[in-house]
């Protein structure tokens, strides 16, 4: 009876105040006692935010030969082509005549005349859509920051070592694309006192936050591994006045650091989607050039910040080491059929830069989100490639998928593409190509409906539908003169 009576008793105002105060006290106590989320944890939450599967190392995703030989930078198609045109004996004797005038035609496309070969840019002469004066001026402006800064650094470098590429207009650039391990003036020198972060997580947070402020769209951190550093790097022996150096100089140098790198900060930069739809054209090339300028700006800023904190750095674009495996190890994305990095955010439409440092910093884990499985089925890049340079082998393990020439790094589970064929088309086109990037179904802007469509690539039974839908919906129509013409007419 008593208990029933108690239950029936109405809650008074005093009881309500008591209950309210008690609840508030409990909540407050819990908030104080429970461990606070560190800044690093907050950042990691935002970094995670995807359904991708995480792995411990890159070796868990791709089979890599433990005896793999480090790649020589001079064996890249770009270096081979330049060495060819300057009449310098390549690193390996089996060089390919396809590469003659390939890269230098691209370098001089805006001038309309390649002074080394004496060839004229036919597309510019006939003002072909995508190669008009306006289009090429767009590209020149976009590359301005990169050219200006790298030229300045190359001049220092040339003064120091006497080696840099010299273009006839007096521009100097290191072939290794702004590896700036040269003495720097004033505040850019390494600060004598090292700043100590409380934890390596905090260091990672600070570096990522700074990199985003400086202009990076994606940031990841990989542990330093010598296998991803070039074995040798190449320089063209011209002096600061642009005159060829007659005496014997070492063109191919061993890549060495004057400190012990511990980690590599990998930076990713989105390239403009609308411009990329016009590939292969100077409008599309302008988006790439903007990427190069951003790579330069951001990596320089981050390296100078680290130097101010008392740490050693070497910042690089395409130089020093191979970027794609580092980006995979840093958790930025996966490798693809075309050999480029595919990111969840922008697909293959990214440029990469990196900063090597001796700062102790928490590294990121590699991730997979079904790219390899999708690439096995799709092959849209291989079909669209103007020079047919991309492998059509279904799987990377197929016997027909084997290294083509010295331009391929060997001993890695990947599709082998003919980079010499690829670059020879650049020469014919008097500009870059990047059709593979443009047509890739992963190449979409960050909008909700693409997110929804992208999830199809993760479902095994529906993967073959993804390419068909991509084509039916009209995405990735590379080489369309209509798009090149309409680029300047579209509203901003």
């Amino acid at each position, binding site marked *: 009876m008593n208990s029933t009576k108690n239950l029936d008793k109405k809650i008074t105002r005093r009881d309500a105040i008591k209950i309210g105060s008690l609840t508030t006290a409990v909540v407050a106590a819990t908030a104080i006692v429970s461990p606070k989320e560190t800044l690093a944890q907050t950042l990691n939450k935002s970094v995670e935010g995807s359904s991708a599967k995480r792995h411990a190392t890159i070796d868990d995703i791709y089979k890599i030969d433990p005896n793999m030989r480090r790649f020589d930078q001079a064996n890249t198609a770009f270096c081979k082509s330049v060495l060819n045109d300057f009449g310098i004996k390549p690193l390996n004797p089996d060089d390919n005549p396809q590469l003659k005038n390939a890269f230098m035609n691209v370098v001089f496309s805006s001038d309309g005349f390649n002074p080394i070969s004496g060839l004229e840019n036919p597309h510019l002469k006939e003002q072909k859509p995508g190669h008009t004066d306006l289009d090429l001026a767009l590209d020149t402006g976009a590359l301005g920051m990169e050219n200006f800064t790298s030229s300045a650094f190359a001049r220092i470098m040339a003064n120091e070592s006497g080696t840099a590429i010299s273009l006839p207009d007096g521009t100097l650039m290191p072939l290794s694309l702004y590896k700036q391990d040269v003495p720097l003036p004033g505040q850019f020198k390494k600060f004598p006192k090292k700043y100590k972060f409380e934890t390596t997580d905090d260091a990672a947070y600070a570096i990522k936050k700074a990199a985003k402020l400086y202009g990076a769209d994606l940031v990841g951190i990989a542990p330093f591994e010598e296998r991803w550093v070039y074995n040798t790097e190449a320089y063209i022996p011209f002096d600061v006045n642009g005159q060829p150096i007659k005496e014997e100089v070492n063109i191919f140098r061993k890549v060495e650091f004057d400190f012990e790198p511990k980690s590599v900060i990998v930076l990713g930069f989105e390239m403009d*989607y*609308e411009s990329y739809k016009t590939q292969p054209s100077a409008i599309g090339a302008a988006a790439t050039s903007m990427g190069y300028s951003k790579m330069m700006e951001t990596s320089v800023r981050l390296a100078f910040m680290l130097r101010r904190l008392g740490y050693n750095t070497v910042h690089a674009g395409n130089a020093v080491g191979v970027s794609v495996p580092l980006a995979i190890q840093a958790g930025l994305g996966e490798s693809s059929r075309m050999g480029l990095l595919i990111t969840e955010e922008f697909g293959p439409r990214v440029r990469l830069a990196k900063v090597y440092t001796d700062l102790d910093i928490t590294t990121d884990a590699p991730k997979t989100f079904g790219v390899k499985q999708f690439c096995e089925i799709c092959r849209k890049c291989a079909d669209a490639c103007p020079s047919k340079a991309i492998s059509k082998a279904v799987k990377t393990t197929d016997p027909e998928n084997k290294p083509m020439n010295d331009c391929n790094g060997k001993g890695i589970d990947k599709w082998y593409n003919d980079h010499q064929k690829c670059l020879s088309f650049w020469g014919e086109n008097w500009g870059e190509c990047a059709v593979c990037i443009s047509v890739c179904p992963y190449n979409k*802007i960050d*909008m*909700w*409906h693409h997110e929804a469509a992208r999830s199809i690539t993760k479902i095994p039974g529906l993967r073959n539908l993804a390419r068909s839908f991509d084509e*039916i*919906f*009209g*995405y990735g129509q590379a080489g369309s003169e209509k798009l090149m013409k309409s680029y300047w007419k*579209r509203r901003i």
Partner: protein
Amino acid sequence: MFFLLGFLSCLAVIQILKLKKKYTFKLPARLLIVVGICLLVFAVAWTISSLIEFENQAAGVGMLFFGGSSLVCFSIATRFTTKKTGEVQK
């Protein structure tokens, strides 16, 4: 865009409630109407998003594909719908 989608969904619900006074919807019809409304809203959202990114073909095909599917759903739903007869409200 989201305002428009909300407005569209609200309009669809009001219309269904109005029709409910005149017609009796069987369970399959109710399901098909829900799916149809979802598809229609998706079609509009897809089309607007595609136009924003200048993908005109994607906008057209999206409207045809998803919008068409929603119309198919609505037309099948009519087969499971009957008109209310003889009831006089007092």
